[in-house]
């Protein structure tokens, strides 16, 4: 499978990235290489083999429903945003 420019632009659109032409080319080459490398797996016969969802073979890992204090409070978290207003994160208009 070959990565086309449109594929890169489509993925960029879905992730809300704006890319320069050079970046599109570079990412295309990179992804192409990655996919070719991984494609080696296609040589294996995987008929009748359950897909692997998880490699640690763990199951039913869950916790109790108890409120615990957090390492970070609201102000610390809001400090990470570019702009805040009324204790909320201000973002460009969406919809």
């Amino acid at each position, binding site marked *: 499978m070959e990565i086309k420019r449109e594929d890169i632009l489509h993925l960029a659109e879905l992730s809300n990235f704006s890319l320069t032409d050079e970046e599109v080319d570079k990412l295309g080459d990179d992804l192409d290489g990655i996919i070719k490398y991984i494609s080696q797996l296609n040589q294996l016969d995987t008929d009748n083999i359950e897909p692997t*969802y998880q490699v640690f073979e763990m199951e039913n890992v869950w916790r109790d429903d108890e409120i615990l204090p*957090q390492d970070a409070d609201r102000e610390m978290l809001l400090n990470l945003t570019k702009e805040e207003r009324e204790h909320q994160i201000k*973002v460009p208009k969406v919809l």
Partner: protein
Amino acid sequence: MKYIPTIGIECHVQLATKTKLFSEVDNDARGKEPNSCVSPVDYALPGMLPRLNGEAIKFAIRAGKAMNCKINPKSRFDRKHYFYPDSPKGYQITQFYSPIIGAGFVELPSGTKIRIEHAHLEGDAGKLTHFDTYSLVDLNRVDTPLIEIVSMPDIHSAKDAHDYCKELWRLMIFAGVSYGDLYNGNMRFDVNTSLAPEGSTELGTRTEVKNLNSFRSVERAVEYEIARQTKLLDSGGKVKQETRGWNDATGKTTAQRSKEEAKDYRYMPEPDLPPINLSQDFIESESEKLPLMPSDYRKKYKGSIKEDTLEILLDYPNLVRTLEEIDAKNLTTIANLFTSVLLAEEKSAEYLESLPSGQELNELVEMNSKKELSSTATKEVFLRLFDPQMKNRGVRNIAKELGLIQENDLAALEKIVDIVLAKPETKKAQEDFKNGEEKVIGFLVGQAMKESKGKANPSAVQEILRKKLLH
């Protein structure tokens, strides 16, 4: 042309767990400040890992059982990718391939069964508030546990759509898995509606009205869509498959701006959460915790409580549960007091928070049947049983304190009647009555009631008066 509407509904239910689905943060953000119930996990800081809340799994089992669904022992989580400021992770953790709740059905009060396709666990998104030039993001709601319930397209009228949503709401509050607070968005409905010509074997093109938050708006939106699509089809037009928004004020749906691009969520297994593999024992022990459901009460009280009355009571699980402690002979009276007195009372919401015991209610009805309390007095004492100032004092004490117990002691009543008859101002009435003027008896009874300060049993007084005047 005549068309048959076909409706399928997706319902998001917020689960009332103490903490969120993937972090140990307070899940009940009602009335709390924006971004005050948020952890670094919800904020999706690099390196944060979700930690699954076991209670949400238990709640999901109960919710599934409430809808007569099969519980799938094996389920797991997937990432659904999309870019939007309400989701700091850039994806929603959901169960796309292997949901925890399998097929089942919900039975409407009318007896119609609506099949459930499946229901899955997922995290909610944050809340956006839009302004002229910007939007504000509150992440309190991020990863509140949700179950999304997907119905089969078994609904064929606006009324059934309404009844289905309401029944789902009742199932969730009876099962105790959600606060069911619609005003605060605890349940939200997406409604798919299509029309097909009568007799057609194929379904028409559907529209989806998203994010409805009341049963009434579901009903109105479906009514509107049926009318709109009928008009469109009759005039030779075609229904466009699209997402539409509902405006409660105008009563209309309008097409929402949609991206040209087809949805591409790039689902992948969630690598940070190991799969769920429940034993039959675990599923059964959770299922057994499910209390009686509305349909159980409909069977139980068929014939003893009027259907209309019971349907009203089924909106209040604690009232229906109190009925279980009421003696069979008192059921009708208590059910009627609940609907016509308690729910009509201004403070009913407050009163509903803590109810009197079945024993107290039984005692009250018995005092009424023994004529110790008139029906007006019964209603008055009944309401006091809920009043935070009065309750817990005992039915008889409350009735006594209010001076509402009727005098049924014949000797005492006779004494009162004698006093009334001895009064000069009643002489004329006594003569008139003896001369056949029947209605003046009311005046004499009234005098006796006044004399007894309202405590005399009026029908007993009347009997004594007749005896004394006519013999």
